[in-house]
């Protein structure tokens, strides 16, 4: 991001007129701001961007942008984004949502979107809680958090490791940002959008209301990812005969930066649109075959 580049649209031009319903101090404000910055930096025309989401406080994001958007179903942002991108490869498609949306009810789509490696940017605003439904434990909530009446003794189960799962599932780009650092986050998002494949951006985005301590404790605990390790060799698709694929993950969940970045080719089982074959002729030929 060289200072020489002066974007033709300012970040705020990407904002719609809808006022966020978020609580004052919510981490998601930082993500919104970082995203508009990234889009402005990339100079993507607003109408060529589509931001789709699930349900949750975080998933309210699309309406706050002056781009095309879809506020879909809880947990289903990724399939919706996948269908959109597969049908309209010309668009910049961004999926966004929360930790509950993406890792609890949407966990299966997360696994398979990572594997499928379609060219999407997926931003998860992880606040380690269900904000929208008033403070239940999410998969990333620490096991000993007892503030939810639904799990009065805590969940008792270890927190979900989004980066590890993404790596094990085959994601080709993994980054982690912090909503308290919108500038750094905007750069990660920009790179994720540029990545030609599935790019997962894990954002620590504290919930002011239900986990009021995260804001300050995360601010202190985050650090550059550099010293840690995320590596994958020999994914099954490009493994040499006889070699042994290996994954290594060393991650305290608080390291910021690009954790993993290995471009892979596009999905091959999709006939892309826009090659504009002669539909009518194809149909005629197919109908003729029915006489055989």
């Amino acid at each position, binding site marked *: 991001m060289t200072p020489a580049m002066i974007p033709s649209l300012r970040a705020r031009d990407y904002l719609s007129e809808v006022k966020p319903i978020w609580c004052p101090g919510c981490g998601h404000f930082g993500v919104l701001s970082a995203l508009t910055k990234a889009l402005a930096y990339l100079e993507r025309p607003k109408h060529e961007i589509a931001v789709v989401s699930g349900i949750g406080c975080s998933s309210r994001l699309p309406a706050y942008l002056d781009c095309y958007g879809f*506020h*879909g179903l809880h947990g289903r942002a990724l399939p919706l984004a996948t269908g959109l991108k*597969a049908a*309209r490869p010309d*668009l910049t498609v961004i999926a966004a949502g929360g930790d509950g949306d993406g890792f609890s009810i949407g966990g299966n789509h997360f696994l398979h979107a990572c594997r499928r490696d379609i060219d999407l940017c997926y931003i998860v605003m992880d606040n380690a809680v269900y904000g929208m439904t008033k403070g239940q434990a999410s998969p990333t909530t620490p096991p000993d958090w007892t503030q939810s009446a639904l799990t009065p003794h805590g969940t008792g189960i270890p927190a979900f490791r989004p980066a590890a799962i993404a790596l094990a599932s085959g994601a080709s780009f993994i980054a982690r940002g912090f909503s308290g650092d919108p500038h750094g986050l905007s750069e990660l998002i920009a790179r994720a959008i540029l990545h030609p494949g599935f790019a997962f951006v894990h954002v620590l985005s504290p919930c002011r209301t239900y986990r009021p301590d995260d804001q300050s404790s995360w601010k202190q605990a985050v650090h550059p990812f550099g010293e840690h390790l995320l590596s994958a060799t020999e994914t099954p698709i490009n493994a040499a005969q006889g070699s042994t694929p290996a994954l290594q993950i060393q991650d305290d969940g608080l390291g910021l930066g690009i954790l993993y970045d290995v471009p892979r080719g596009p999905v091959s089982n999709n006939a892309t*649109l826009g090659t504009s074959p002669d539909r009518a002729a194809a149909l005629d030929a197919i109908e003729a075959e029915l006489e*055989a």
Partner: protein
Amino acid sequence: MVWLSGDQQSITVAISGSGGSGALTAGFILLAAAQRCGLYGLMMRSAGPQVRGGESVSILRLGPSPVTNIGDRVDLLAALDWRNIERFHDELALDNSSLVLHDSSAGAVPDSILASAAEQRQIDFSRHAAEHSDGRANMIAVGVLGGEIGLPLPALADAAETLLGKKAAATVEAAKACIATGYRGTVAQRETRADGETLAQRETAAPAFSDSPRRWRISGNAAAGLGALRAEVGFVAAYPITPASEMLEWLAPRIERAGGTLLQAEDELAAVNMLVGASFGGVPALTATSGPGLSLMTEGIGLAIASETPILVVDVARGGPSTGLPTKSEQADLNQALYGLHGDAPHLVLAPLDVGDCAYSVEWASRLAERLQTAAILLSDQALGQTHAVIDPPPRCPPVLGRKRIYAASAQDSAQDSAQHAEQPSAPDSPARTSTQTPADSIARYAPSPDGISPMPSPGEPGYAYTAEGLAHNAKGTPSSSAADHRDQLSKLAHKLKAHDYGDGWARIDRGRATKHATVSADKPIAADQPAPATISLLTWGSSWGAVQEAANRLREQGLQVQTIGLRLLAPLQQEALRAAIEGTRVLVIEVNAGAQLFRYLNAERVLPLSARSFARPGPLPLRPFEVIAQLQDQLNLSPQAQDSGSKHSHKDSHKDSRESVATASQKGARR
């Protein structure tokens, strides 16, 4: 057993055998041979529980006029062996005028076959096959049956060549040799038989084999796929499930040729949400599934409806509930298709009436969904989807305007009339997306409009960015919990479906041509060809249409004035048109499910007279014409003789009586 001699309008042939015996291949070859002779036909198949290699039966019905169903009984059974034949007892429907051909080496004829009192004849399928190197008993059977039926040998050979084309040349030659052996043996044998018909006579009587353009040989699943291509569906996402997978497998290579995309999803939740995404992107989208998958899709279908994003879900139904009967048919998903969504979520429900109609209905359903910005559910079933038929190419669906584009919103009403009759069935009512024209000011995505349809931009169109919304929202799409916004948007959703003019496609109504005995009498004026007004309505939907149609034809031949009504558009129900159609008739509502689901639905909508009766019975057996006739006589207390003396139907029935009929009728159905 003589080919279509005299009055016989069709013949039903079954081939049975254990795993690997090739009963299905034999059936397919006979069907293709019939196609090659200008005949019509259809073939159903039934298999044991084994995943592969289990015993199976193919049942074909062939005839010179369109074959709508499998008929009441099997005329001719070729049993390659007897293993587990009892499994198919119900489906075979043999009787004392059936002929059973069986292999002498297969052992004793099972009791179930003996009990049918069918005529038995031993044919040494396997011994004859052994005469040829690579010879197979099922090909001998093809020859024998072809000869029995009276299909010409060249047609059988050509069919075998086409269907076995991918195999080694030697295999194909062996098959043809076996077919010839079987054929010649049969025909020669007949020459010596009492009926004295000669080979020459037979060959003359046989339908001609020609190379000229033929009728189509297609399954309902393939026809549905074709409908998708005709509708310019450009995106398919789905998860495999029996009996819908074949529709997807037919589509996968072909949609690619037509420039579209097919994606195997991780589950049905993903599939339906992928459709919503693709369609939001401006590309007509479809999925196919069966009951369990439809259950998983209801939330996504609701999103499509609430966000006004068109999608089409094809349900190739199987027996239910739950995992149910994966390989067998039932019409029991109607309730879920009509009512299965939470909240008030008006949408389209359609059902094809026969194999070819799968193409017409899928195309229409997709185009209607596009125009009305809603979800359509199309109810096919295993009996349509996995039936292979020889049919006339099905017509294209009626013209439907394409998505309402934002540019044309003002010129909408005037454009509509002219475009409605344009040659291109789905001209979008606006300039193409590439137009450089930019609007003065943005139009709210969910703005009210006289027809209830708000113009819908696609991503990529500058100036119209909007966020599609599944929450209650205002005209702009901003979430709103105001009672007024909620009410306005709910009535828009309902109104756009009600206000649309669906034309005649909502149902097939057949009042019959002049009955047979009317046309043979030369002194009748031509006006006699006009059907007489009906006094009885047989009202049905989906795969039951064929058997109902045949039942009606027979009843008409007995002099009853019967009309058949096959509903293609189930929701929104065309109440007025349906009321007009059944006005003054006695109505029997016919369907293959335990719950009398259509009957109840029609009552819910108050379109039926109180005298209407229900014939509903569960699957998986295909509906047979005789069942319909028996029920008609039973429930409407009506035999052909009785009708003339019976008083014309009116709504006089005692109230008490009629209110009891839901339970009575459906219980009767369930008890069958």
